[in-house]
Each structure stands twice: as structure tokens, then as C-alpha cells.
């Protein structure tokens, strides 16, 4: 891990006590993604303090996991981060496989990689699009969502669902890459790039966009680490940390890709990192696809696993780099067919707890921009 902190940090913001207006934002508010709530104290448009309240989508997934078998829990992981369900599926599968002590065949690993990176692109596209919508630029969202539809089509042809994929199974994947992928990918690569380029042209150099994003919610790397930031949010602060590089899982150590980092951790950096990561994901898919094509057609897709999965007694933690950051599954097994305790470490949970500090002293409009740029997915936030 390389730390590149060149920035100067100063303490800012208003401190006087006064007569402030309490403004309740959410849970039903256009920018609150459905279930988030922030109670702010405002002085005019400036936020004196903001306190996020969560739990409006607490569905008891962890408790439910204790009452379901390992295989039955897999569909529930879809419903955590529903913007990139596949990453959750694979994270859970990897965790259980770690508990079982098996490693899936190479071809399955490559298919998982390809699908995960597609999911990452889809997730980032939604984030950038929603960020645009929340800052008033609606059009890029529509350009990006079309690319997302294309990605969904590949998902659908691979395992039969668009959003809640339940891809693969413990021990491998059940289906080979679909014909759709072979036909579409060469073209899709260009259209994704084109849509990103159009978004870039509409937003990145537009002065209004720059004013709205550069320097907004800037955050220091030290604070970010202290608060437990991971993923794009941490990288935006200038810390080069990516689990795909640092703790390689699947076959990520064999791919050649860059980890983009920002400098100030402001909304613009977060946005740029996501834009650049999409490009890197395309690169990874290309490499993985080339490796995939070298494998024989009847290469194994699954490892032999017992029909009822019973990991030995013990506890493991396995984390992967989901689009939002470190997504970890802690599984405590008591040797039965049901996990004794499942704990999910959602990436945006750690980021969102610092929200009050992130937006303090900024304006209401910045609060909206900040929330969009964090990419809080209520499903994994509340679980």
C-alpha cells in the first residue's frame, strides 16, 4: 500500500452556537435513495450538524441467515447490494469456500471475474448517473442506464435474472459464459466507452459541474482510515488500497490493471475514480476473456462439493473488493448445515457513519452531492 498524502489539511467550519433550523431530510426524499434519513441543523443553507439515521431497511438478513442453510442464504446476498448483486454472491461463495477449504477451478474463477467486473461497471454507471441526477444533470443518467441494460442482458442470458442474480453456487459456477457474451462483448466494450465519454463530455469539464464537485466534502486520508473508509472513497483521499491488488483473491494477481487514486477525497475525485475504474474493469475483462478463451471447452466449472454443505467448526472472515469497497463475510460455523453466525461487513456502512463529519459546514446542496457520491445502498447498509 502506498500512501501519497500531499495535501494540507486545515480545520474549518462554523462553531458558534445560535438559533438553528432543524431540517429533516428523508426517509422519503428524492436524493435519499429511498430509505435514508438525515436530521440536519441548518443556518440558512449551511449545515451546522447532520446526523444520519438508518435502519429503515433493516430486514434482519443476519438473523435470517442463521435459520437458513448455506445454499439458501445465497439468494439473500443478492438483496444486500442490489446494484452489484454478483459481487455479493461471489464474496459469499468465496467465504464459504474458504470455510470448506476448497478452491474452484480456473474457468469458474475467470467467469466469476468477468461477471464481477461487469457488475462493477454497472454499479459505477448507476452511481455516476445518480450523481448527475442529484446535481441537476439528468441526461447522462439515461445514456449510462442503456449500457446497464446491455450488461443486464448478459447477466440474464448467463444465469436467468437481471438484478438479483444469484450467480453461481458454492463450489463454482453452474453455467458457461453465454453465447450472448461472445457476440456482444467486442461491441459492448466500445459502447460502454462511448457512453462514459459522453458523460465525461457533458460533465467533467463543465464549470458548473466542477464548481459543484471540486473541493466539496474534501476529506483527509488519516481521517478516512480512522473512520474505516474503504474502496473508492478511500482511494479518492489518496490512499492506494485495493483488495484486488493487496489481498488478491480469484485470479486478480494475474491481471494487469491500475488502481486510480485521487488527491483530496472530494466529490470530484470520487466521481473521477469511478469513471477511471470502469475503464480498468474493461481492461480486466479483456484479459480474463483472453485467458478464458485459451482454456479447453470442457474445462471443469465446479468443484465437487457435498450436496449438503457443512463446513467444519470454526470461524472465518473473507473480504473482497466490491464496487463500494471492502465487502466481507464473517461466518461462524458450528458444523451443522446452517451457519451459526453470519456477519456482513458492508462497505458503505463505515463510510456513512462519518456522514455527519463529511457534510458539516457545507451547504444543503453539498449534502445531496456527498450522499450520492458515497453510493449508499440501503440494502447492505441496514441488512
Amino acid at each position, binding site marked *: 500500500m502506498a500512501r501519497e498524502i500531499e495535501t494540507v489539511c486545515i480545520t474549518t467550519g462554523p462553531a458558534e452556537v445560535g438559533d438553528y433550523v432543524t431540517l429533516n431530510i428523508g426517509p422519503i426524499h428524492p*436524493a435519499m435513495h429511498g430509505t435514508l434519513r438525515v436530521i440536519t441543523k441548518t443556518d440558512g443553507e449551511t449545515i451546522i450538524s447532520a446526523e444520519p439515521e438508518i435502519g429503515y431497511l433493516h430486514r434482519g438478513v443476519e438473523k435470517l441467515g442463521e435459520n437458513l442453510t448455506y445454499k439458501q442464504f445465497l439468494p439473500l446476498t443478492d438483496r444486500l447490494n442490489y446494484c452489484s448483486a454478483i459481487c455479493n454472491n461471489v464474496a459469499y461463495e468465496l467465504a464459504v469456500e474458504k470455510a470448506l477449504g476448497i478452491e474452484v477451478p480456473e474457468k469458474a474463477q475467470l467467469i466469476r471475474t468477468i461477471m464481477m467486473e461487469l457488475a462493477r461497471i454497472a454499479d459505477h454507471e448507476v452511481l455516476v448517473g445518480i450523481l448527475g441526477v442529484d*446535481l441537476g*444533470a439528468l441526461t447522462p443518467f439515461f*445514456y449510462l442506464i442503456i449500457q446497464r441494460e446491455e450488461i443486464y442482458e448478459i447477466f440474464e442470458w448467463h444465469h436467468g435474472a437481471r438484478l438479483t442474480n444469484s450467480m453461481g453456487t458454492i463450489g463454482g459456477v453452474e453455467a458457461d459464459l453465454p453465447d450472448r457474451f461472445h457476440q456482444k462483448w467486442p461491441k459492448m466494450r466500445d459502447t460502454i466507452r462511448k457512453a462514459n465519454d459522453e458523460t465525461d463530455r457533458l460533465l467533467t469539464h463543465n464549470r*458548473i*459541474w466542477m464548481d*459543484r464537485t471540486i473541493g466539496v466534502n474534501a476529506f483527509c486520508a488519516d481521517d478516512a482510515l480512522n473512520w474505516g473508509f474503504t474502496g473508492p472513497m478511500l482511494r479518492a483521499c489518496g490512499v492506494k488500497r485495493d483488495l484486488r491488488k493487496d489481498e488478491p483473491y480469484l485470479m486478480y494477481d494475474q491481471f494487469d490493471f491500475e488502481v486510480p487514486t485521487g488527491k483530496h477525497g472530494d466529490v470530484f475525485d470520487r466521481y473521477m475514480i469511478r469513471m477511471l475504474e470502469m475503464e480498468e474493469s474493461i481492461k480486466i475483462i479483456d484479459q480474463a476473456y483472453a485467458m478464458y478463451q485459451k482454456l479447453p471447452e470442457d474445462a471443469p466449472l465446479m468443484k465437487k462439493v457435498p450436496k449438503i454443505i457443512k463446513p467444519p467448526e470454526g470461524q472465518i472472515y473473507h473480504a473482497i473488493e466490491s464496487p463500494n469497497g471492502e465487502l466481507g463475510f464473517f461466518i461462524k460455523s458450528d458444523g451443522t448445515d446452517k451457519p451459526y453466525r453470519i456477519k456482513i461487513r458492508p462497505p458503505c456502512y463505515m463510510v456513512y457513519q462519518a456522514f455527519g463529519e463529511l457534510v458539516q459546514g457545507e451547504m444543503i*446542496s453539498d449534502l445531496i452531492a456527498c450522499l450520492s457520491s458515497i453510493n449508499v445502498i440501503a440494502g447492505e447498509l441496514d441488512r
Partner: protein
Amino acid sequence: MVDWQIDLIKVIFIWVWALLIAVVMTWVERRASAMMQDRLGPNRAGPFGLLQPLADGIKLFTKEDIIPEKARKILFVLGPPLFALPAFSAYAVVPFGDKIVLGGKEIILQVSDVNIGFLYVLALGAIGVYGMVIGGWASNSKYSILGGLRATAQLISYEVPMGLALLTIVLLYGTFSLREMVLLQQGTFLGFLPNWGIFKQPLGFIIFLVAAYAEANRVPFDLPECESELVTGYHTEYGSMRLGLYLFGEYVNLGTLAAITVCLFFGGWSLPYVDMSKFLGPVSYGIASFMVFFLKQAFFLFLFVWVRWTVPRFRYDQLMGLGWKALIPLGLVNLFVTALLVQLTI
């Protein structure tokens, strides 16, 4: 026909025209935005979805009318009409064509050629914001009042650069009457350029256009009803036809602003290089001049839509900064230079 009958016809015509523009604009906005965003937009109500505004109107009229319990009832009711009516009234001084000869009578295509028509427009533009502020305040909702406050601040800051930009035009033409201004824009100057305000006052035009966007509360200046921040801003608590009036007023306002822009900077009904009155009959000339004016107005209306779906939104302080730190100094410099040039040339 007697004079008052002619006036009445003109008034009715201008009302229908303004209404029609607003109605069609709601359709154009939806379809055009859809086309820019790679989708289709409403196309099920009537041919090409043209009856969509009608359907919306019927629905809004037959919806339950809610006045929140803790709202100021009188002001709450007063808000929407106060917003929509000034926009309509401003049409009264817009010269929407040159003149038409009907039954041997020469009729000027303008409801009333007030010699301070220009000030009248400015004044009405300022009244319109009261509708927003009152509506926002009377709703007794924090989002609404934030929207109302934003509207006030925005109006105050952008009225000034707009006034400055218009002052240069007044300096240039030496009149307050809109009709006279249009008449002065016929012909060419420097041999090849049309004698239009935009070529004589390019900077003034840009300042005016930006201020007009701010006046009309369009993206990038739609802070009073900023969807993602203030839910829907000053009309958050409004439903049914009161909301319809707000939405409608916005489009009427757009029509007015587009018409004023055309009058001041784009030569009104006149075509460059061509004098239509020479080869057209008196009746057809009247219609043709109206058509020319309408086309120019339509372009600006489309520009309003086009820009809206392209750019992001300002932040509140940036909006103020742009107004006070950029547009007003620019407007002052422009005014000074224009004044100097006018003084030197005369």
C-alpha cells in the same frame, strides 16, 4: 369594427396564443427531453401524444384539492394566480407582428403600444416572484420556505444585471417602446450585418439571456424548485390545479421571456435583408410578420428546453456569486462602453 372590438379581439388572441404556447411547451419539453435522452416520451394520448397536456389538465382539475391544515389559507390560495397572471399580462406590450389591414383599417399587431412598455415588462417580471415567495411561505413547510427564499434572493440578484443589460439597449435605441425598438432594428449596419440588437450588443445579449434563465427558474438556475434538494421547492405542498397553475405559469413566463428576447435582440418580426412588406399583400404581410416572430420565439423556447437537459444545476452561493461578481460588473462595463460609444457617434 370599432376600436374596442379590435382591442378585444387582440386581447383574446394574445391570451389564446399565450395559453397555446404554454400547453404545447409542456408537450415539447417532454418529447424533446425524451429524444435527447434516447427514449420516446409520452406518445399514447392522442397522435404523437399531443393531447398529453389536456390529459394532465383534466386530471389535475378533477383531483382533490388539499390545503394543509397549518397553511395560511388565503395566501396559499393566492400564490398560484399571483405567479401566473403577471406572466400573462406581460404579453400585452409584446409586438407580435407589424400591422395588418383588415376592412380598410390598419391594425397594429400589439395589444397596446405603451411608451414605457419596456419598464412594464420589467415590473411584471418582478411581481411574478411574489407568487413563489407567498406560496412557499404560506405552505408552512421547510422545503417550501427554502424554495421561496431562494426565489427571492435569485430574483433580486438577477434583476440587476438584467436591468443593466436592458439599459444598454435603451441607450442604443433611445426609446422605451418595444414596438419602436423593433422598428429601429430593421435594415443593416456595417453593410452586411442585420441591424439587430444581438450584433450591436453581444455582451448585453449574453447577460440578458443568463438573467432570463434565472428569472424563469430554469436549469441551471432552477434552485427554487430544485427537485433533488428541496423535493419540489416552493410548490411542494401544492396539488391539483393549483400546482397546474404554477407549472402553467412557468411556461407562460418562458413564452414572455422568449418574446421579449426576440423583440430586443433579434429584430422582432423583421427578416434580415428582406423587406416583406414590399412584395406581400397587406393581409398576408401581417400574417407573415407574425409567423416570423413566432418562429424566432419558438427557437428561444426550444433553447430553454435544450439547455435544461444539458447542464447541471448551480449551488446557491455560486448562483449568487455569478450574479454579483460576474454579471453585474460585466453589465456595468458594458453599459459604460455603450454609453461612451453612443456619445461619440451621435
